[in-house]
């Protein structure tokens, strides 16, 4: 698939540090404070949503209420979970889909 015409750093022997994530981390001074905060919150929200969904399918407004999250934040995360195969649509309730965890991984 990858095309021979796509030019770039082609075919050069890799340097020693190429496979070491440490090199990248050091070069960028590690995660920024902002990024650390972002990552922490991301994981907190995801944990809340996963736990809530264990009790059964829910719509986004229901999830938001249960987890005390802003509904647009909930929506974004549920859609991310959907994209990466962690949740799927369940039934439609009124004007809303409900979502459930996808059991098998």
């Amino acid at each position, binding site marked *: *698939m*990858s*095309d*021979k*015409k*796509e*030019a*770039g*750093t*082609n*075919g*050069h022997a*890799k*340097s020693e*540090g*190429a*496979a*070491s*994530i*440490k*090199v*990248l*981390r050091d*070069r*960028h001074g*590690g*995660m920024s404070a902002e*990024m650390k905060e*972002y*990552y922490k919150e*991301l994981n907190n929200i995801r944990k809340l949503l996963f736990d809530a969904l264990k009790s059964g399918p829910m*719509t*986004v*407004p229901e999830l*938001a209420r249960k987890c005390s999250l802003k*509904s*647009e934040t*909930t*929506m*974004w*995360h*549920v*859609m*991310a979970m*959907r*994209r*990466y195969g962690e949740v799927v*649509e369940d039934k*439609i309730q009124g*004007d*809303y*889909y409900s979502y459930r965890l996808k059991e098998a991984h």
Partner: protein
Amino acid sequence: MSDLNKRYDGMVIGAGIAGMQAALDLAEQGFQVLLVEKDPSIGGVMVGLNKVFPTLDCSSCICTPRMAEAAHHPNITIQTYTEVLNVDRNGPGFNVKLLKKPRYVDEDTCIGCSKCELECPVLVPHEFDYGLGSRRAVYIPHSNAIPQVATLDVEHCTFCGKCAKVCPADCFIYDQQPEEIEIEVGAVIVASGLQITPMGAKAEYNGDKLPNVVNPLGMERIQSSNGPYGTVLRPSDGKIPKKIAYVQCAGSRDKTIGVSYCSRVCCMYALKQALLTTHYIHGVEITIYHMDIRAFGKGYEQFYRRAMDEGIKIVKGKVAKIDETDNQDLIIRVEHLDEGGRVEEARYDMVVLSQGLMPAWKPGSALGIDVGEDGFFESVNPKIKPTLSTMEGVFLAGVSAGPKDIPDSIVEAGAAAMEAANYLQRTTKPKVTA
């Protein structure tokens, strides 16, 4: 070190539909072309659209073959994730300096398996979905992306190193650095395309604050089957919208936001999206508020009539304000011009701001061609030779030269390629092979 050639006949800046077409047309004539794109994938705006007016063809279905054609053409070299630093005149040609941004992935060995993306622990708003959807810190932009290789977004990286561990082809090059590339080219075609007017441009619309006031490109993604939600939902809470309003000229023909021109495509894309939404959501009610509908192209007036026949409400009146209710519905305030000037406050589940087109690239000193009052690249002779920029040997194609739709962009790209070919013939030893 890059293994690009030292010299190309033509360089095309921007690999949207216009840039790809120009590159193909030039390459078909035997010229060696370098196609430079700043994003990880070629395809521009078009590959992210849902369907196109007035034919309602699936946009990515007709754009992807073009992308593949460009990628496989023996005379085209594609350079993605690369910025143009400088274009300097050198005789009839140019010395060009490019900056290849590090992907931290070997473009040649990556097989596009997405294993790294699936393993990466970070979620980031995805540019391709205009923030509505998500991606990981290491990602392949979308299933139609060319090249199908991963890119690591170092700003959002946790430096956990999982990606390299799961990569089956050993592609990660964590010590990659930005690389400056110097080449010579005989002619340049600028096809750097569009961005839409910022969502916050007109403060009264609160487009940058209210989640259900959506950007029209975001709406294209929402409508796409491979979009962020897989179906049409509103961003605040996933409700299936039953009442949608389109606000025309939200980002055009308005001096207070510095965009006094008509962007040409917004009336048509609003009609298109409205019509399609009625196919996606049963019983949806859609109103397009406008100053006048400009259905300027072949078959467009008919399309407009069709949308009205299929029940889209067309209301004359420029929306002045958008506010939010407690449940994140939207209240728009508008004067009904055809009903004696009645002022109405109407409630909607979702409002799409039909934003205008603005140039995506402001090269400043990187490329010494003139920019017009409207911000788009100026043509020396807009009537007779619309694709000639103010610098000899630099040609213009697509929205970078002014608002236009896809067919016009393609036609203009062909014209720019022809002008460039003529220029190359005139100024260099012809290399045309039969």
